[in-house]
C-alpha cells in the first residue's frame, strides 16, 4: 500500500512538473536567478539586491542585441538590478505580445509600436507613465512633447510610452539615376505629390530593369496612402462627430492616383506582395528608384550603397493646403507592462536607457533622432549629415502629424482588410470606389463601436509642433 501511495505521489509530482515546466511564468522575478543571453554580468550589485527585470525587444538585430547587452551590464553595475533580455522577431511581435498579454505573462519592460497601443491600453497590458515623467518634460525635444506625448494623451488619456528615438519619413531617391536622366532635385525646397508621381514616371524604364517606386502592396500598404489622403482632410481620419472623412470624390481620385503607381507599371508586378524588407532590398539592390520610409532605413543604406547613389527628399506637401503631412513616431517605444511586479525598477531602467548619453548612442546605431534636447545637437544630425533632411522636416513650421486610423484597436484591419482591399482593386477584382468604400466602412463601424463604449472619448486631430 505504501508503495502504491508513493508511486501515485511520484506520478502526481511528475505530471505537475511537466505542466508547470510548460507554462512557467518568466516575467519579473525576485529570485535573483541568472537570466539568459542578455543577463547582466557578475559584478557586485550596487543597491538592487536580487531583483531581475525582464525586457522584451520586438525588433532584434545583432546591433540592437549587442547594444542592449552592454547597456544592461552598465545598468547592473549602477543599480544592482539585473535585466534578462528577451526578443521576438518583428513579424511575430504582435502575435507574441498578444499571447503573452492574454496569459498575463508580459515582461516588465517591452518595446512597443504605437499602432498596438489601442489594443494594449484597452486590455490594461501597459501602465500610464505620467506620474513617473512628472515635471521632466522639459528634458525632451518639442517633437516628443508636442507630438508624441500629446498624441497619447489625446488618444488614450495618459502617456504610456517613452520613445526609444524618433522616426520621421522621407523619400529616398536614386541620385545617380536622377543625374543620368537630367533631373535636379533640391531637398531644401518643398515639392508636391504630383512632382513625386512625375519623378516615378521619369525613373521607370523596364527595359533597363528600373522601376520608379518601391511600392508597398502587402501588409502596411495603406499606411503611406492614408497619409496622402489625409492631405485632403486636414490630416484627420474622422471629423469631430466621429464620421470618416475619406469617402468622397476628392479622396477617391487621390486613391486612384496613388495606386496608379502600380497599375501604370511604376513598380514591378511582384510589388503587390512587397512589405518593408522587399521595398528596402529592391531600392538598395538597384531595381527601384524611390522609396518612402523612415529615417531608420538610412542606417542600412549608409552601409549598403555609395553616398553618390542616394539622397533623401522631404515628404511632399499636400496639393490642397500646402502642408507636409508626415508621421513622427517612436518605432519601438519603451513601456511598462501591466503584469510587472516591479514598475518602479522598470521605470528606472527606462530612465537609464533614455538618458541623453545612452540614447544618443542608440540613435546613431539605429538611425533614429534623439528624444532629449541635450543629445539632439550632435554633428551627426546636422544639416549636412545623413539625417539632415529628417531634422529639417521636424523643424518645418508647415509640418503636421496626421491622425492614426483611429483611437480604437485596428490591428486586425491593418493585418488583413486594408491591404487586401487595395490588392483586390489592383487585380481588377473590384472598383477603386468599392475598395476605398470598404476600408472606410470598416473604420466607421469600428469608430461607432468605440464611441458607443467610450462616449466621452475625444476625437483625434492633426498635431503640429506649436
Amino acid at each position, binding site marked *: *500500500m505504501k508503495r502504491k501511495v508513493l508511486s501515485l505521489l511520484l506520478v502526481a509530482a511528475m*505530471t505537475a512538473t511537466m505542466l508547470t515546466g510548460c507554462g512557467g511564468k518568466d516575467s519579473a522575478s525576485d529570485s535573483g536567478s541568472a537570466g539568459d543571453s542578455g543577463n547582466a554580468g557578475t559584478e557586485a550589485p550596487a543597491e538592487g539586491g536580487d531583483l531581475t527585470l525582464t525586457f522584451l525587444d520586438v525588433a532584434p538585430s545583432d546591433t540592437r542585441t549587442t547594444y542592449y547587452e552592454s547597456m544592461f551590464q552598465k545598468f547592473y553595475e549602477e543599480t544592482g538590478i539585473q535585466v534578462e533580455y528577451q526578443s521576438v522577431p518583428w513579424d511575430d511581435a504582435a*502575435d507574441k505580445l*498578444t*499571447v503573452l*498579454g*492574454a496569459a498575463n505573462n508580459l515582461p516588465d519592460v517591452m518595446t512597443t509600436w504605437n499602432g498596438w497601443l489601442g*489594443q494594449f491600453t*484597452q*486590455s490594461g497590458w501597459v501602465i500610464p507613465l505620467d506620474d513617473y515623467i512628472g515635471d521632466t518634460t522639459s528634458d525632451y525635444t518639442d517633437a516628443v512633447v508636442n507630438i508624441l506625448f500629446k498624441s497619447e494623451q489625446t488618444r488614450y488619456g495618459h502617456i504610456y510610452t517613452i520613445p526609444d528615438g524618433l522616426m520621421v519619413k522621407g523619400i529616398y531617391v536614386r541620385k545617380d539615376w536622377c543625374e543620368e536622366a537630367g533631373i535636379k532635385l533640391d531637398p531644401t525646397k518643398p515639392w508636391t505629390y504630383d512632382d513625386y508621381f512625375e519623378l516615378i514616371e521619369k525613373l521607370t524604364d*523596364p527595359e533597363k*530593369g528600373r522601376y520608379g517606386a518601391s511600392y508597398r*502592396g*502587402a*501588409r502596411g500598404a495603406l499606411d503611406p496612402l492614408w497619409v496622402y489622403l489625409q492631405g485632403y482632410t486636414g490630416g484627420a481620419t474622422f471629423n469631430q462627430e466621429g464620421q470618416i472623412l475619406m469617402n468622397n470624390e476628392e479622396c477617391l481620385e487621390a486613391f486612384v492616383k496613388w495606386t496608379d503607381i502600380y497599375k501604370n507599371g511604376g513598380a*514591378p*508586378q*511582384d*510589388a*503587390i*506582395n512587397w512589405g518593408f524588407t522587399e521595398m528596402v532590398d*529592391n531600392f538598395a539592390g538597384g*531595381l527601384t528608384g524611390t522609396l518612402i520610409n523612415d529615417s531608420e532605413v538610412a542606417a542600412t543604406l549608409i552601409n549598403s550603397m555609395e553616398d553618390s547613389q542616394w539622397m533623401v527628399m522631404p515628404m511632399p506637401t499636400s496639393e490642397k493646403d500646402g502642408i507636409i503631412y508626415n508621421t513622427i513616431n517612436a518605432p519601438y517605444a519603451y513601456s511598462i507592462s501591466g503584469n510587472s511586479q516591479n514598475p518602479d525598477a522598470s521605470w528606472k531602467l527606462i530612465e537609464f536607457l533614455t538618458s541623453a548619453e545612452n540614447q544618443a548612442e542608440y540613435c546613431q546605431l539605429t538611425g533614429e533622432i534623439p528624444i532629449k534636447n541635450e543629445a539632439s545637437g550632435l554633428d551627426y544630425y546636422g544639416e549636412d549629415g545623413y539625417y539632415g533632411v529628417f531634422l529639417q522636416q521636424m523643424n518645418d513650421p508647415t509640418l503636421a502629424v496626421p491622425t492614426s486610423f483611429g483611437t480604437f*484597436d485596428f*490591428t*486586425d484591419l491593418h*493585418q*488583413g482588410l486594408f491591404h*487586401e482591399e487595395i*490588392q*483586390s482593386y*489592383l*487585380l481588377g*477584382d473590384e472598383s477603386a470606389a468599392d475598395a476605398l468604400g470598404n476600408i472606410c466602412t470598416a473604420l466607421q463601424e469600428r469608430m461607432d463601436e468605440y464611441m458607443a463604449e467610450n462616449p466621452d472619448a475625444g476625437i483625434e486631430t492633426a498635431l503640429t509642433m506649436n
Partner: protein
Amino acid sequence: MSSKKSGSKLSLQTRRKLQPYFYIAPVMILLLLMFGYPLIKSIIMSFQDYKLSRLDKVSWNNFKNYAAMFSDKNFGLLLKNSLLYVISAVLAQFLLGLGLALTLNGKFKGRGIYQSIVFLPWAFSAFVVGLLFRWSFNGEYGVVNDVLKKLGLIDTGISWLGTPGLSLLVVIFAMIWIGIPFFGINILAALQSVPSDIYEAADMDGCGTIRKFFTLTLPYIKPTIIMTILLRTIWIFNSFDLVVIITEGGPANYSQTLPSYMYTQAFASYDFGLAGAFGVLLMVILTLYALIFLRITKYDKAGDF
C-alpha cells in the same frame, strides 16, 4: 487466494482484463491533455465571441462564428483552393513517388547515392523549402524566370507570386517537391516486401511487365498506398506553413487555403472564435474523408490474397 496474497481486492481475472488499460493509460492521459483539451476547447471557442485581445468580453454567440465563416466572401475561394491544393499535390506526389520507388527497386550503379539525394527534400523544414521556392519564383531575380528566358519560352519575367492562380501553383509545386520522398520511401519499403517467387511464376506463365505490375505488384502494395494517400491527404489539407511562407496567402487571398486562412484569422485578427469554427469545419471534412476513403478503397480487405 492469490489476490489475497497480494493484498488486492480485485480478482486475477479482473486484473488481467484491466492490465492493457494500465499500459496505455500514460499515453491516453498525455493524449487527453495535449490533444483532447485543445480539441474540446476549440470546439467551445467556436461558439463564443473569443478575441484574444478582448478576453474580458468572452461570451456565447451560438452559431455566429459559423454564420460568419460560411458568409465570408472568400469562403468559396478557400474551399476551391484547398481542394485544388490537396488533390493536385497528393496525386502528383503519389505518381512521382511511385515512379521513384519502382526505379529505386531495380538495381543500378550509384543507387545508394541517388536514393540519399532524392529523399533529401523530406529532411528539409517547410520554412527552408518555402524560402527556396519564394526566391526561385521571384518575378525579378528568380532562377525560374531566368531559365525560362534562356530557353526562349518567355520574353519578360512572370510575376509568379503576384498573379492570382500562379501564386497557388508555386505553393503546390513546393508541396509536391517536399512530399515525393514520403511516398517513395513507403512504396519502396512495400515493394521490397513483395515475394520474388510470384514474379518467377508469372514469368514462367509468360506474363508481361505491365500485367505483372497491375495484377501482382499493385495488389501487394495496396495497403501501403491507401494508408500513405490517407495520411498525406490529411497532412496536406491541414498544412499552412508553405502558404504562409511563400505567399502569405496573397495576392488578395488568392493562394489562401482553409487552414492558412484559419491561421490568419487566429493570429492576424486574434479572432479565436472564428478560427475555432474553421478548425471544426476542417475536422468534420477530414473525418468524413477518412471514413469514405477507407470504405471505397476497402482498406480492411486490402492485401488479402
